[in-house]
């Protein structure tokens, strides 16, 4: 009987040791806003993402003030006037990769479904992503469109022509094994 308990305990411990997770520490997220007045482009190379290979859950965390713009003033306005990164420093995504098979080699295209939270607003997203596996390295790439209105971001009437209503977002994450 005592052996039985021991076996159970050991099995739990072994699960804990092998985290079964992969992490991307230098993920790339960029976004583009195209209008006749001006094009705005920004890039962030310090995005974090983690995938739990056991249940196909994925999480992404983006530091908003790490976005780099062409113009230094754009970055200040983005953080100060639009995203308010003092109050909402991060944008996060939490979801699941549907029908993801971690053991499959090569490229698979899957839907990622989950909640995207930015500027204090939540939005359910469904994103098509390409997942590539080479040896033990996973690379997830994809893009989606974010509607500015959904995230309660105020744009003054005078500048409405400068910022697109729909922003294109591209992402690329390279994962490696995660050890805690």
């Amino acid at each position: 009987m005592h052996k039985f308990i021991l076996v159970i305990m050991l099995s739990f411990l072994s699960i804990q040791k092998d985290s079964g997770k992969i992490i991307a520490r230098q993920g790339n997220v960029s976004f583009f806003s195209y209008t006749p007045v001006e094009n705005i482009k920004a890039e962030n190379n310090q995005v974090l993402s983690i995938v739990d290979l056991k249940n196909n859950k994925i999480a992404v965390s983006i530091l908003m003030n790490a976005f780099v713009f062409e113009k230094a003033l754009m970055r200040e306005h983005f953080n100060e006037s639009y995203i308010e990164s003092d109050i909402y420093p991060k944008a996060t995504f939490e979801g699941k990769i549907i029908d993801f098979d971690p053991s499959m080699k090569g490229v698979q295209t899957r839907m990622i479904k989950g909640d995207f939270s930015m500027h204090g607003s939540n939005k359910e997203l469904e994103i098509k992503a390409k997942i590539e596996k080479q040896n033990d390295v996973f690379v997830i790439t994809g893009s989606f469109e974010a509607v500015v209105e959904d995230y309660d971001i105020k744009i003054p009437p005078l500048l409405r022509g400068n910022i697109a209503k729909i922003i294109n977002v591209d992402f690329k994450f390279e994962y490696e094994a995660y050890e805690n």
Partner: protein
Amino acid sequence: MLILSLNMKLMKTKTIVSILTFLLAISFVNGQELLDILDKEHKDTLRFTEATFKYSRITYGQSVQTRKSGTLDVSANIRFWNTPEERSQSFFVDRLNTRFALEYGISDRLLLGVGGSTFDERFDGFIKYKLIRQGVSSGSPVTVSLFQNASYFSDALPYSSPGRMSSNRLSFTSQILIAKKITSDFSLQIAPTFVHRGLVFNDNDPQNHFAIGFGGRYKLGGHVSLVSEYYYVANPIKSFDTYGPFSLGINWELSDVMLQFMLTNAVSMVEDAFITQTRNNFNFKNPNLNFGFNFTYTIHFKNKLKGKR
């Protein structure tokens, strides 16, 4: 569930159940909180507060703010006021003082500027260095900048005036600017200041002055903030009455343009002059109240995305 039912079958004590639930709880936490793991990863990076003030000047005086590297600010600063004459012909613009200025960010912390004023005919140049940056949640609690300017008083003087020699027409102002962004909307600044005046017309007047400046910003909306500033001079000029310069203003930003509107009693826009030689008090009697207007256009010479890849 299987484990629990097995457990029930074995009819063992409560301790086993509690151990199992504890272990289950661990594995549950382990599997669930992916975002918490990412939060821990984020913690290593030290971040600095941005935009304690929105521009290198609060209204007329310097702020802790320097500009980002490769940006050039082209600005026209104008003050309008009325003369006390009753039969004034113009609305608020009997006199005006305009200062044109160029300010360039050598690095994110080092700012150089030059300017020239029309009314008081001063030409000035300054250097400002951001020494300490306020951190977000950790790091320094305040931002500290060092400021040094030199201004040349070029106005013609009477033949008998002691200041006709150009060697003592230069004045210098040194400041330690200390500011804290207290909340995302509210910033305060305190600025110990030392002024050395080149020209002293009366022997009783001090040549060196100590002053302290106070400034604040309150963000009213995404693009608009309310700003105010005041300087107290510890040893003012004795031969004529001077007052501490005070201002109340609004900053309004529109992409590359910064507009600052203000009411002030400071006529000059050069540090040594407005700190020590503001001759009007702040009230609504002509010519005391000035309406001020700073227009700044920012040109970016560096594409921050280039060379990043």
